[in-house]
């Protein structure tokens, strides 16, 4: 309301009713709207063009070598900054269940010096590396809160000695190498096997040693023959030749014979059980000479040949 109202006629401005805009879209607007509703155009504007602009700007910016290096350095520094935070640091390594030798080896295998960032320790690679140690059966590596790299090691248990052409090795129950020894006397409590391919069937060898219970003090070892069957070697050069299949049963049968007849206490060089239905005994020279003497045959020498001086007199 103005302060002074002008009452003179013809001067007053009557408010014109507001001119309503034409509700019809102009032809240009109409065409643009229709163009916008075209699916291809719409997809181009909403996806294609922004993607192109982004790629263009990014490509132009990255075209310069210095900027690329700058970007790379920046990214690397941020990554290093995050990785070297206190929360990710590993301070100590805790090893459980490992013998001192293995523990020393394990510490030597750690690729970085502690404390180090946990991002620098590749647990999977470290585990694979540790698993190459023969003495280690399994290892459980993990980084515990508080910056501890914990390694739970299960070592292989020595179960058997294997003598082969290159030396003597300690094997575990599954036949995997644990360590090498220089002589049999280092581990006298372990049974001994020998022959090519004997490490592949250590389970059977151990079963045979278990079955050999009563004659175990006399057992010298098991010999793998032709990578298919076992010979049980006793002292005094006696040997029990076991079949390819059912070796344990055949050995038990031999032990039963031994118990009943004191078979192995007699002059017998070998017990041939290769055919389980037909056990064959090979007598020693003294026993055969006793028989030959009783029969009046010429005696045999220690090499198995007939002695020249003892003619058939009987």
């Amino acid at each position, binding site marked *: 309301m103005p302060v002074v109202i002008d009452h003179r006629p013809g001067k007053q401005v009557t408010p014109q009713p507001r001119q309503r805009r*034409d509700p*019809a*879209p102009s*032809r240009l607007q*109409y065409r643009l*709207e*229709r163009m916008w*509703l*075209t*699916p291809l155009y719409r997809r181009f504007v909403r996806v294609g063009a922004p993607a192109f602009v982004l790629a263009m700007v990014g490509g132009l910016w990255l075209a310069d070598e210095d900027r690329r290096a700058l970007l790379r350095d920046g990214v690397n520094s941020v990554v290093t900054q995050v990785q070297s935070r206190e929360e990710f640091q590993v301070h100590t390594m805790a090893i459980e269940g490992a013998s001192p030798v293995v523990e020393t080896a394990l510490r030597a295998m750690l690729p970085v010096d502690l404390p180090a960032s946990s991002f620098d320790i590749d647990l999977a690679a470290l585990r694979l590396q540790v698993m190459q140690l023969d003495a280690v059966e399994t290892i459980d590596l993990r980084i515990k809160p508080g910056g501890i790299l914990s390694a739970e090691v299960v070592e292989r248990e020595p179960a058997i000695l294997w003598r082969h052409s290159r030396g003597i090795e300690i094997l575990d129950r599954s036949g995997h190498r644990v360590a090498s020894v220089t002589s049999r006397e280092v581990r006298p409590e372990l049974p001994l096997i020998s022959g090519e391919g004997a490490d592949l069937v250590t389970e059977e060898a151990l079963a045979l040693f278990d079955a050999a219970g009563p004659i175990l003090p006399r057992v010298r070892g098991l010999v793998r023959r032709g990578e298919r069957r076992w010979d049980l070697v006793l002292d005094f050069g006696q040997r029990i030749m076991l079949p390819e299949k059912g070796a344990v049963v055949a050995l038990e049968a031999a032990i039963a014979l031994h118990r009943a007849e004191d078979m192995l206490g007699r002059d017998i060089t070998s017990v041939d059980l290769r055919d389980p239905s037909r056990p064959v005994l090979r007598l020693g020279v003294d026993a055969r000479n006793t028989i030959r003497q009783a029969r009046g045959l010429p005696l045999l020498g220690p090499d198995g040949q007939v002695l020249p001086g003892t003619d058939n007199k009987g």
Partner: protein
Amino acid sequence: MAELYQTQRAMRNIRRAALQRGVVGILDIGTSKIACLVLRVDSNGTFRATDGVGSMAGQVNFRVIGAASTRSRGMRRGEIETMAETERAIRTVVAAAQKVAGVRIDHVIACLSGGRPASYGLAGEISLASGQVGDHDVAAVLAACETPDFGRGREVLHAQPVNFAVDNRSSLADPRDHLGNKLFCDMHVLTVDGDVIGNLVQCIRRCDLELAGIASAPYASARASLVEDEQELGAACVDFGGGGTGVSVFIKKHMIFSDHVPIGGNLITQDIAQGLRVSLPVAERLKTLNGGVEATGRDDRDMIDVGSDTSEWEADRRHVSRADVIGIMRPRVEEILERAREVLDAAGFDYMPSQQIVLTGGGSQIPGLDGLAARILGPNIRCGRPLRIDGLAHQLTDPSFSSAVGLALFAAHPQDEWWDFEMPADRYSARSLRRAYRWFKNNW
């Protein structure tokens, strides 16, 4: 007629292409309002499985995905008067409907209410050489219909075969493979002023749209508002529009007559404006809110404010009773109904087996119209609403949208027209090569 055949064939091919693309627009350009529906058509019937809508008389293979309506501009009596204004109105409504639908429409099917339509019933007969009706015989009998002189500048809008007869067996819908010696057909032809169609085509083309079909508005609204039994048994549809009243008569599911009375709701508004000395918008408001045709005692006491902004107290603070409004409206409505009665009499509607009359269009919402119409037109009157179609918003289902809905049905399920049949060989005068090809195709 050959040229008409070619243009209609071309339009039919455009319509097929539009249906193939899946989106087609419906443009109902009336005198008082203009409506646009965007139809998504699927020819595979995938909507059927997803929707709970049953098979609504087979009208389920399309769905309305966008609809808009606005006030019409530049139209008078169903014809385009000012092209630029009408073009703007079309742009408004098409842009709004496209915005709702989210797709652009390139093809529209439009309807035409004015243009002085004229109905002709044509009859044709041929003798069957092979003793059996084949495809080319149907085309030949349609071509053999005697065409009267339609007059200068008249265009054929519909040419529908209504009935076929072989020898003495009549009322065949599909005469193919019937045995006989003679084939007769009855065809209904609707012609309108060619310039009116030309204006419409021009207007639509200036909106970057392509015309994929054109139908007569009384035909379209009858398709939407007559139920199937009424179309089969015979009924008349009276479409009260703004600029004119369309009348169409259906029997055996075919339109057999159509005419247009150039008096409509706009004239009623004009009468009120003149009689009560109010502006046209106020008169329109009075008509739609307080209109009626049966005055009762209560209407004398029902006073209505008719304000205006002439800044004269006497003019701005007037009251009229509702009875006054009714008193102005009723004679004009009676006149419209009497003119419709004359049209129906001219069509011989009295001799139809069924005398059902369906009132539709925006004017049919006048309260008490069915009572008045029953006195003038005949006893079997009902006010028809358009068929329910899938996806159409509720505010667009009132009777004034029946021609838009009918156009949608026309787009999805067009009835056979003359140009849907192959043209017989002897009509191709200049193209002897194709003629030879036809001859080989028909005879070998």
